[in-house]
């Protein structure tokens, strides 16, 4: 689980911030040691669910920075609720994360 998440509840709005550990290779970079192109390797999707319901979803391309950062705001979840996160990259590798709203 390498999706790191922070959530803050104020005035009924949950402010969610997350950081994924990922190289986000564009497929255009050249490996200086070998002279070969480094294959594209980037997160495609990030999904946030709450009680089985999708709250937020993001499609990412290679132009998102290394170790992608996303933040968004939702209404509904309460203090003590758990938000689940999952991601899948272009190689089909998945990752997860979660946060309990303080």
């Amino acid at each position, binding site marked *: 689980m390498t999706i*790191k998440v*922070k959530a803050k509840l104020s005035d009924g709005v949950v402010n969610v*911030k*997350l*950081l994924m550990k990922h190289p986000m290779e564009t497929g255009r970079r050249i490996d200086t040691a070998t002279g070969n192109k480094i294959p594209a390797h980037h997160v495609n999707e990030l999904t946030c669910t709450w009680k089985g319901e999708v709250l937020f979803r993001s499609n990412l391309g290679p132009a998102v920075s290394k170790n992608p*950062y996303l933040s968004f705001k939702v209404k509904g979840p309460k203090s003590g609720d758990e938000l689940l996160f999952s991601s899948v990259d272009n190689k089909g590798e998945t990752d997860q994360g979660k946060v309990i709203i303080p």
Partner: protein
Amino acid sequence: MKGKIILLSSIVLATVGISAYAGPEQDRVAFQKFFHDKFPRTPKADFINGIYSIDAASREQWLEIEEFPPYEIAIEEGEELFNTSFKNGKSYADCFENDGKNSRKNYPYFDPKRAEVVTLELAINDCRVANGEEPLKYAKGKLAAISAYLSFVSRGERINVVIPDNAGALQAYENGKEFYYRKRGQLNFSCFDCHGAASGQRVRADRLSPALGHVSHFPVYRSKWGGMGTLHRRFKGCNEQVRAKGLNPQSQAYKELEYFLSYMSNGLEFNGPGARK
């Protein structure tokens, strides 16, 4: 007659010069005053934020990054490594008291027995070697992660380098100082030329950061590196930017440079790890 006067005055000057130099503490006061005078609008405690203490536009972007800084990944890795036992059953906690908390402020220090400056990174590897583990590489990776964790759990402690009454320690300080002010490399710059006299000015698109507070926020996640690096990695990069050959991290010269530069920032807070462009 004229020659005599010149001779005499130079003797007077030399004597004044010697008696006026009261040592590192006088250097520190003058060094800090230099930056306080140069950047009067920067609160004195804010120099720990490097370039962001004097450049509002880049500070704003840095604050955005600080919302969830990429070095948090390294802190977590470092914490795991710190709490992983060595093969002999011992761990870093046996080397760093109080589970490493607040240990950052103990470094760098001069060890009279070893007759050398001991940095945090050196102490981490010493701990490994004493427990039968291979030392880690000094510039980045795992060592930078452990250093990031130890810095993080020591945030808010003050830089407080104490130079003991020891000829070796004073020599180490003087060596570091001399390294700092000497021009080197094909471009013929000293550290201070850029980060003292010219700090705040632009080099192409970049503004030069002030030297005061430089050591407070390392190791750093540098966007240019796409990863973490130690203070000595940055020293090396800086040297190479003036086209001098960079030295090895934890070489004697860099340890002494860290000793001097840390002393210059005495009194400021440790706020590492940091995020830089």
